[in-house]
């Protein structure tokens, strides 16, 4: 366990260092410099460069940059809101995005489990058809297309939900974006839950429980659900990535003031420092979540700990 943990931690740290190196290099290659003002004389530019440490060798600059990023100093915005520290820009936006992502994950997982388990247990024709249709659409159709459909039909035509996000009524205004994002999650979870449950239902211990004359509800609740629920965690890593990408477009569509819309705005305003800082945040989030899920997986399925060697 400790060895596996160490290896995974090492990989995560190396990955983050690698990402920081790429981001730093990108900053070096971006056109223009912070002191592109013609009014500045050569001496003044030299003084400014000395002040900000830009006269030091590139290696030294990289380690300073690294130190700042690790300490949580992401730099300042150039053009979106000049000279505002990026951490200040993020402070209010972060909770919004996290809440929406969390809600989508929860809603998708819940409905996915219900759909998958119901189909596995009582797989009659109608249910199987609904399951096939919903999982195919959920997996194939991108969340932004669902969002478009919802906002036109539910929001604009039927006027059931507000079209744009409003922080005073965050609950109801989030229904459509969360629904659009959770459909994909639901489809993947449903498929996984159904496959797991069907597998467990065929297993010897469930057959044995049946032979002992236990009634169906006991078998389902005590044996099948319990044993097929845990592995579902393992598919969540991939889903999270989808949510990150999806939330970018969806936040823009519903004017949700989250991290995603900040990134889209920064891209269109050419605010490189914000784009790069956000890229780092996204990578950090992703790497940390992958690490946690890997460790959870390893706790659930002890075979992983043996270094992937099948017996």
């Amino acid at each position, binding site marked *: 366990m400790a060895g596996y943990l160490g290896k995974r931690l090492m990989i995560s740290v190396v990955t983050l260092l690698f990402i920081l190196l790429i981001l730093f290099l990108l900053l070096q290659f971006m056109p223009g410099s912070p002191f592109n003002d013609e009014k500045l004389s050569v001496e003044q530019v030299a003084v400014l460069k000395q002040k900000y440490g830009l006269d030091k060798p590139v290696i030294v600059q990289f380690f300073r940059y690294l130190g700042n990023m690790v300490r949580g100093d992401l730099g300042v915005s150039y053009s979106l809101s000049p000279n505002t520290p990026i951490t200040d820009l993020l402070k209010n936006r972060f909770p919004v995005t996290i809440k929406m992502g969390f809600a989508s994950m929860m809603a998708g997982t819940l409905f996915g489990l219900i759909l998958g388990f119901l189909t596995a247990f009582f797989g009659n024709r109608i249910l199987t058809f609904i399951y096939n249709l919903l999982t195919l659409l959920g997996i194939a*159709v991108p969340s932004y*297309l669902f969002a478009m459909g919802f906002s036109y039909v539910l929001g604009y035509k039927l006027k059931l939900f507000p079209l744009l996000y409003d922080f005073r009524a965050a609950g109801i205004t989030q229904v459509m974006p969360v629904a659009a994002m959770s459909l994909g999650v639901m489809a993947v979870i449903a498929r996984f839950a159904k496959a797991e449950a069907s597998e467990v239902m065929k297993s010897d211990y469930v057959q044995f429980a049946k032979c002992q004359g236990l009634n169906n509800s006991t078998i389902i609740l005590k044996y099948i659900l319990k044993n097929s629920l845990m592995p579902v965690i393992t598919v969540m890593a991939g889903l999270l*990535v989808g949510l990150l990408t999806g939330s970018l477009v969806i936040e823009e569509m519903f004017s949700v003031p989250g991290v995603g819309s900040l990134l889209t705005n920064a891209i269109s305003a050419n605010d490189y420092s914000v784009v790069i800082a956000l890229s780092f945040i996204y990578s950090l989030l*992703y790497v940390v979540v992958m690490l946690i899920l890997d460790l959870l997986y390893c706790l659930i399925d002890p075979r992983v700990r043996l270094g992937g060697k099948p017996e």
Partner: protein
Amino acid sequence: MSAANVYVPVKEDFVPAPAEYTENAVQEAAGGVRHEMLKRFFAYKTSVTGMVILIVLILLGLIGPHISGHAYDQQNLSMANLAPRVPGLASLGIFDGTETVPKTDGAVRRNRYEELGVTDTYYIFGTDNLGRDMFARCFMGLRISLIIALAATAINLVIGMNYGIISGYFGGMTDILMQRIIDVIGSIPTLVVVTLLMLVLKPGMGSIIFALMLSGWIEMSLISRSEVLKVKELEYVQAARTMGAGHMHIIFKDIVPNIVGKLVTQIMLSIPAAVFLEAFLSFVGLGMPAGTCSLGTLLSDGFSNAMLHPYKLLPAAIIMILLMVGCHMVAEGLKKATE
């Protein structure tokens, strides 16, 4: 047992089987399996439906931009924002170019074809705000998106397959080193890679393909590696090795044909992923430059107009859904057939 009793084989003991016999037997056995796979694939309703959808879409992508009588980039400002009008159906009162336009004092129904006096003109999908034919644009967009997706997938396949095969086949230190590299590169979110690259590169088809390539090959390589690991210990590969076959022969003649099924499935899944990412780039303003069109630019332009003129969004959205669903249906059929 003393060494003297051990029979030492001489060269003459080994008589190679007649070449045509072994070749034929192998071919037939392999052909049988492949035939069986194809039969299973075509017996499955979902995969056949998916195939039909994809073939129709590809044909439409080829001929669609040329059959409406209007070029996809031909502007005609006097004909801007027309609703769909379909020959034949127009006389029945549906799809005759009438649309309901919301105004501050309630909705108004109007037919701009009649207002302009061009009732003999038909735009099947309507026109956009520059008077360009949406029918030609939608299928041109489909064509561009398909080209981007196919090119990116083809490059991913070449890089990923070779990387995975080398890593899995040679094993040992090579494998460990190559997999650690994958661990690091694979931990960078695709979204970040693609966004950053598009900031640095000039917008256009080549850059989009390049950006998609950098992120897409990893999945392909993981799949080919795990398949190679399974196949390389099988008897027939061992037999080939014993018979003195070289690495290249074993890899391309014995291993690759047996992992094709899994790879094709992965191809069918990476095409929609590429289309998805291309559209995503258009949404965040890093997609195809103005003037050209792709499903992504059509969707993002259409969405900004959707409340006023929903017909600008609908055809592109339906095409995209069909493309995605079609690919996934085929992939599902392949998965079932190769199991």
